C-alpha cells in the first residue's frame, strides 16, 4: 500500500506543509494566550463596559464559524489597513483571534480555580487588584491551565487546516496539490491524516506527561 516512490518524490510537500501548520498553530496559541489573558482580565474587571466588551467578543467568536472569521479577516482586514499583509499573516491572525476567545475562557476557569484565600491574603496586605493578579493569582492560574493550553495547541494543529482555503500552503493545502499533480485522489489524504495524527498524538502525550509531573510537585 505504501508507495515508496511517491514518498521519496513528494515528501518535501509534506515537510513544508508541516512547518507551516506548526508555525500557524504555535503563533496562534502564543498570541492567542496574550490576547486571551487580556480579554479574560477585561471580563473579570469591575468596570461594566469592559466586561461587556469582553463578553461580546468571546460570544461572537465562539458563536460564528472559524471559516467565516477567516474570510472576514482575509478579505476585510486588508481593506481596513493602509499597508499590505501577507497571506500567511492574515491566516495566522484569524487563527489566533479565534483561539484567544477560547483561551480567555480557559484562563477564567484557571483564575476561578485559585483559592479565594490567596486574593484575600494579598488584599489584606494592601496589594491592589493589579499587583495581586500579577504576582499571586496569574502565576498560579497559568500553571493550572498549562495542560489546557497544550490541548488548545493540539486543537489548533487540526483546525488550522482551514487556512488552506485561502491558499496558505499548510499540510492540507499541499496534500490537495499532490492530489492534482499526481492524479492520485486518495493516498495524499491518507498521508496527511497520518502526519496530523502523529503530531497531535505525540503532543497529547507530552501534555499528559507535563500534567503528571505537575501533580507531583503540588
Amino acid at each position, binding site marked *: 500500500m505504501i508507495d515508496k516512490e511517491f514518498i521519496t518524490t513528494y515528501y518535501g510537500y509534506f515537510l513544508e506543509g508541516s512547518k507551516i501548520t506548526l508555525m500557524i498553530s504555535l503563533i496562534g496559541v502564543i498570541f492567542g494566550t496574550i490576547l486571551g489573558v487580556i480579554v479574560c482580565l477585561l471580563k473579570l474587571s469591575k468596570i461594566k463596559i469592559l466586561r461587556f466588551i469582553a463578553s461580546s467578543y468571546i460570544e461572537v467568536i465562539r458563536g460564528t464559524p472559524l471559516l467565516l472569521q477567516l474570510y472576514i479577516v482575509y478579505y476585510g482586514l486588508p481593506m481596513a489597513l493602509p499597508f499590505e499583509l501577507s497571506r500567511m499573516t492574515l491566516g495566522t491572525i484569524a487563527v489566533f483571534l479565534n483561539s484567544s476567545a477560547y483561551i480567555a475562557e480557559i484562563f477564567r476557569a484557571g483564575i476561578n480555580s485559585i483559592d479565594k*484565600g490567596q486574593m484575600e491574603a494579598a488584599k489584606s496586605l494592601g*496589594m491592589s487588584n493589579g499587583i495581586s493578579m500579577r504576582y499571586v493569582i496569574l502565576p498560579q492560574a497559568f500553571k493550572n491551565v498549562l495542560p489546557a493550553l497544550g490541548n488548545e495547541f493540539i486543537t489548533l494543529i487540526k483546525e488550522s487546516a482551514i487556512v488552506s482555503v485561502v491558499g496558505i500552503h499548510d499540510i492540507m493545502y499541499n496534500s490537495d496539490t499532490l492530489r492534482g499533480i499526481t492524479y492520485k485522489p486518495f493516498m495524499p489524504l491518507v498521508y496527511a491524516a497520518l502526519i496530523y495524527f502523529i503530531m497531535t498524538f505525540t503532543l497529547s502525550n507530552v501534555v499528559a506527561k507535563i500534567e503528571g509531573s505537575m501533580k507531583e510537585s503540588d
Partner: protein
Amino acid sequence: MIDIVNLNKSFGELNVLKDINVSINKGEVVVVIGPSGSGKSTFLRCINLLEQPTSGDIIFQGNSILGKELDIEKYRQKIGMVFQQFNLFNNKTVIENITLAPIKVKNMSKAEAEDIAMKLLKRINLEDKKDEYPNKLSGGQKQRVAIARALAMKPDAILFDEPTSALDPEMVGEVLELMKELAIEGMTMIVVTHEMSFAREVASRVIFMDEGEIIEDSSPEEIFTNPKNQRTKTFLNKILKC
C-alpha cells in the same frame, strides 16, 4: 484606635451582624469568642473591608474607613490579617511571601525587605526554610510565616481569624506562643479564637458574640468567672467542659 459604630452586615436576608458597637484601643488584645455562625469572622473581615458593611461606620485613627475618599489599600497596609487557612502565596517561597508586599506595596528595596524578612524568620526560628515553598511546611510553620508576613508590613493592628483552628493539636502551642509575645510587645490584636486559655491569659478584653450581637464585653476574669448573661454561661459551660 478603631471604633466600630452601629455596624450591620447582611448577606441577602440573613443579618449576620446586628448593631455592633466596639472600641479597640491601642495595645489592646481583644479576643472574640462565641459559637460558630455567631458572626465573629464576619465582624473581623468587616474591619479590614474584606466584607463591605451594610450600614454603620468604622473609624480608624479618627477617620471613617467607609468614606469614598479613603484609600483602602493604604488602610489595609496598617491592618494585618492572619487567616485560619494561612493563605500563604503558593507560588512564592517563604521569604518571597514575606517580602512581596513590602517591595510591591511599600516600594521598599529588595535588600531592605529581605533584611526585615530574615530578622522575622530568625525570630520565628525558620531561617533555614527561607527558600522552601509553603507546601513543604507544617501547619504550625505556615501560620508562623503568615504572622511574619503580616508583621513585615509593620501594621498598627493585626486581625487573627481563628489562627489555630486548622492546626494539629501539637502545633497550636508554637503559634499561640508567638501571638503571646506580640501581645506582650504591645501589638494591638483582635483575635477570633476557641482557645480559652489564650483568652484568659493574654486578652485585655473578651467579647462574647452570639447570633450577630455582642452579648458581653468585659475583662477575661469577669467573663470566665462571673458571666452576666445566660447565653455566655451556657456557651462557656459547653466549651470548658470538653
